[in-house]
Every structure is written in C-alpha cells, then in structure tokens.
C-alpha cells in the first residue's frame, strides 16, 4: 500500500467518529434542517419583491428568485460550513485536548486536517441534495435532472478550492490562536461577491468584473446553468476548467502554509497550548 493510500484509508475512521459525535447531538442534527428551511422561507417572501425579469436566464430558461437563490444559498452555506470546519479542525482538537493524541499516531497532519472535515464534505452536499429535492416538491423548485451530474462535477472541482482556503486559515489560526472572526469575514466577502443572493451585475462595475474570477461565483454559476438551465457537460466543462487550476493553486498554497504553521508550533513547543 502506498503512503498516500495508507493515509486515505484512515478517512472513514474520521467519518464514523464525526457521525457518532453529530448523532449524539440529535436535536442539533435535525434543527440544522429546520434552520435551512427557515432561511429558504425568508427568501421565498423576499422573492415576492423581485420581478423575474430582473434575474438572469439560464440556457434560455427564466427562473424565479427562489430558484435563483436556492442554488446560491446552498453552495454558499456549503462553503461556510466546510471552510469553518476545515479551518478550525486542528484548533478544535487542540481545544478538546485530543490533538497530541492524534499526532502520536503515524498519521500525517494533513490527514488529520482533511479527516476532521470529511464528515462535512460528505454530509453537507448530501443534506443539500435532500434539501433541494424537498424544495422541488414543496415550493415547486424546477430542477433539471439532466444537470445533476454536471453540477456534481462542478462541486467536485470546487471542493479542493475550499479545502485549500481552509488549510491556509487553519495555519493562521494555529499560529495566532484566535482568527476565526477574520476567516468568517473572508468567507462573507467571498459570498457577497459570488452572486449567491443577487446577480453580480447589480454590483459596481469594477467589483462585478473582479467577482467574475471568484471561484465561488464560477461554481454557483456553473451549478445554476446545470440545475436550472439543464446545460450539458460541454457548457459546464468551461466552468470546471476554470475551477481546477484555482483549486490546485489554493490546495498547494494552503497545504504549504499549514505545514509551515505546524512546524513552527512543534519548534516552539506550543502545539498543545490554546
């Protein structure tokens, strides 16, 4: 078994651990869904103020505001949860006292880091799919079934981007201890310039131009085109091609920064301190 494979087979252990922990908080487990549904309800009422002709069309298909915002909301929430979890995974282990026990096993720090986020990386998209399915039944969200696999491809190409950002943020949090506020600010700015809640064309021109290169905006646009417009692989491929280098760059830089931060903590002897 190669070293990478030996590390990858450890990920299900993290998945099971975090499922058991999440399941031990059953109320929070279910209230999560209720919270998401409540947000959607709010946007459904806001949607009554927005004329459909103010919204862009996708592959010629006109969409309602609820349809427009549903995709943006779930992708944005995915980013926020995955980023927070990835960035604070090591810090959380540090706080609950398990970090050194983890590092005493022959497990790479990056595996600990990814492993601590893997439950959310699996659960949040699953929850998203269930939620979108629920919306299509209850509020008539009109999703193109042909777009499901292409949108999944966009999400897959986008996940390493979030992971890389999370690694970089984890390095910063490990170094400065308190940095979750700064990370959430960054995530909010990323979300604001993503077109999740309103079309990018409403932003000032220069911000709208910059936002077009925002990987989150690219991912949301790609998923909307697939799920709302029913565009196929060839159209979505362009988005995936833009996302792959951004994700690779994010992952490499994030891993490097995290490694530097962890090495610094070992040298300083402050790994177990919080």
């Amino acid at each position, binding site marked *: 078994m190669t070293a990478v494979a*030996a590390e990858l*087979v*450890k990920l*299900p*252990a*993290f998945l*099971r*651990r975090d499922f*058991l*922990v999440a399941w*031990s*908080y059953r109320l929070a487990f279910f209230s999560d869904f209720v919270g998401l549904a409540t947000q959607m309800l709010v946007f459904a009422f806001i949607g009554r103020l927005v004329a459909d002709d103010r919204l862009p069309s996708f592959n010629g298909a006109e969409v309602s505001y609820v349809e427009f915002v549903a995709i943006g909301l779930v992708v944005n929430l995915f980013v926020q949860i995955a980023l927070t979890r990835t960035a604070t995974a090591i810090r959380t282990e540090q706080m*609950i*006292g*398990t970090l*050194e*026990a*983890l*590092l*005493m*096993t*022959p*497990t*790479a720090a990056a595996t600990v880091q990814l492993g601590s986020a893997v439950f959310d990386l699996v659960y949040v998209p699953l929850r998203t799919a269930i939620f979108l399915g629920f919306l299509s039944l209850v509020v008539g969200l009109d999703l193109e079934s042909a777009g499901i696999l292409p949108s999944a491809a966009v999400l897959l190409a986008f996940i390493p981007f979030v992971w890389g950002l999370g690694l970089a943020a984890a390095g910063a949090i490990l170094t400065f201890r308190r940095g979750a506020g700064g990370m959430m600010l960054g995530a909010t700015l990323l979300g604001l310039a993503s077109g999740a809640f309103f079309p990018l064309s409403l932003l000032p021109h220069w911000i709208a131009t910059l936002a077009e290169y925002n990987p989150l905006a690219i991912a949301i646009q790609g998923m909307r085109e697939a799920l709302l417009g029913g565009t196929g692989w060839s159209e979505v491929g362009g988005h995936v091609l833009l996302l792959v280098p951004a994700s690779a760059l994010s992952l490499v830089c994030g891993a490097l920064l995290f490694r530097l931060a962890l090495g610094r903590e*070992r*040298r*300083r*002897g402050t*790994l*177990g301190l919080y």
Partner: protein
Amino acid sequence: MRMMPSPPIIEAHELTRRFGDRAALDGVSLTVAGGEIHALLGPNGAGKTTLLRILAGLTTPTHGEVGVLGADASKAERSLRAQIGLVPSGDRTFYLRISGLENLVFFGRLHGMRRSRARARAEELLAYVGLSDAARRPVGTYSHGMQKRLSVARALLTAPPVLLVDEATHDLDPEAAADVRELVRELARHGAAVVWATQRVDEIRGFADRVTLLGEGRVRFAGSVPGLIATTDARTFILRLRNAQLGDAGGRLTRMVCAHGVIAPLDDGGTDHFLLSLTGDSVLGDAVAALQAGGVSVVTCHRERSEIEEAFVALSAEPSP
C-alpha cells in the same frame, strides 16, 4: 527485582529546551533500557512534561540529541510514533461524546489497523484495563481513574516498546493509582522501556528501577531509588508518647531531650503525638532513651516525611549553579 536489559532504548544527551529566555530543560541526559521503569521526579515546572514531549517527538529540543530505538526522535518521523505510547497528563484527551470502545477503534485505525482488527484489539485492551463493562458508555461518563485506564489502553494499541506516562496517578484515589501502576509494571515485565513522570514521590518505591530528579530544568539526582534515599538524613520524627502528661508536656519533654533536639506537641497538644527535631549530630536512639529515662514511653515513631520525600524536597530546593 527485574533484570536490567540492555542496550538503552531511550537515550537523551544534554537536552536543552528554551521558551524565550526561560530554560525549561538545561543539559538533561537520560537513558532508559527495555524493561526498565524510569521515574521522572520533580516539582511543578521542573521540566518533566517538556522532557516527555521531546521524547515523544511532540516538540523539539533547542540543543542536544534524543534517540528512541536508535532513531532521532526530534525529527518526529511517523514510523517512530507507532513505537511510542504516550499517556498524557490531562483528562480530556478523548472524544467524550462517544464510547471508550469507539475511541480506541478510532485511534487504532489511525495506527493503520483495519476496522475489524482495531475493534478486536480495542476489546482486548479494554478487558486488560478492566473497562469491558463500560466499553459502550460515552467517555464523558467515565471517572478520572477510568479515563486514565483508557488512556493506558490507547497507549498500548500497538504494543509499543516505549511508554511515556505523564502524571498518570494525579487526582486518582490510592486504589485506582495502584491499578494504573500495576498495568504499567506488567508492560515493563514484557520488555517496554517506561518513563514515568510523577510528583507522587512515594509511589516510586518498589515500582521504579531508576529515578531522575529534575529541579528548574536541571538534573538534581540520577540513579537508583535506594541511591536517592541515601542522599537524605531525616531529622524530623513524629512520636506517639504515653505518660507524657500533656498539660505540662512542652516544658518537661523539652528538658528531657534538650541535649538531642527540640520536641513540641502536634495539634496544640490535643493528642499524644509530638514532633521531634534532632539537632547537631544527635541520633534518634539517644533522644528516645532520654524520654524513656524520664518515664515516658515511646509507643510509635516514624519519619515526618518519607526518605524519598525528604530527598525530593532537599534536592529540588538546591539552588541552581
């Protein structure tokens, strides 16, 4: 008495670890052979935990060399980690919402075991540390003693040849502390090199083979437990006396032993126990004889502090050179 196998499994030479201007360790050397229990004594802040963390590869020394099983521990190679079991000092080193069994299975899988193997090993170890009945309870419901035993079980997942134990009996009642020591003793019998950091000085008697006493990051003593005891010359004893006539005890007893030391009632004279402090070159027998000659019977006599505690206090308090 156990045989002392060789060669050393742990070798630390002139370790120094600085945190800013403060030296947590200053030129500390240590060797531990397989099958040996090496006690690391010292007051708070002496550097015991820092030394254990360096041996475990969790932090690096500022200067010096540290070898574990022939490898450089300061490089924190992953392959070495499976060879070292660590029982950390803190209680909260587990996932409290999940069971002891699931915790051990999780850590076993991080050691590269398949799930079925990790589960079998976890069940075996839970039985070994006497936690089978609590295996499926969340760790958050465990007592301190149970968490310590679980911690020992986790450290043994890979049957490591090196075991580092940090204040394992701190906060434990005597029975639970004895249980943990017996588990560790059993491992040493099977050849593990054990470093046992503690402040409970008396627990090392009959338990540790050798001892290193740290004070302010420096080695104050290194050798056998009898060697440590031999550094002391206990001068204070608690006597239980009969016919001491408590109302007048202070003056009369003091006159009896004045050539040998000072005697004073314990607990403001409310009991028949007295504290005798020898002075000069006086010996205990002469002081006791003087009391007997005055018609006072010495019912019991024991040291105010154990020899090890005396040595601990005296050597720890020595000023740094």
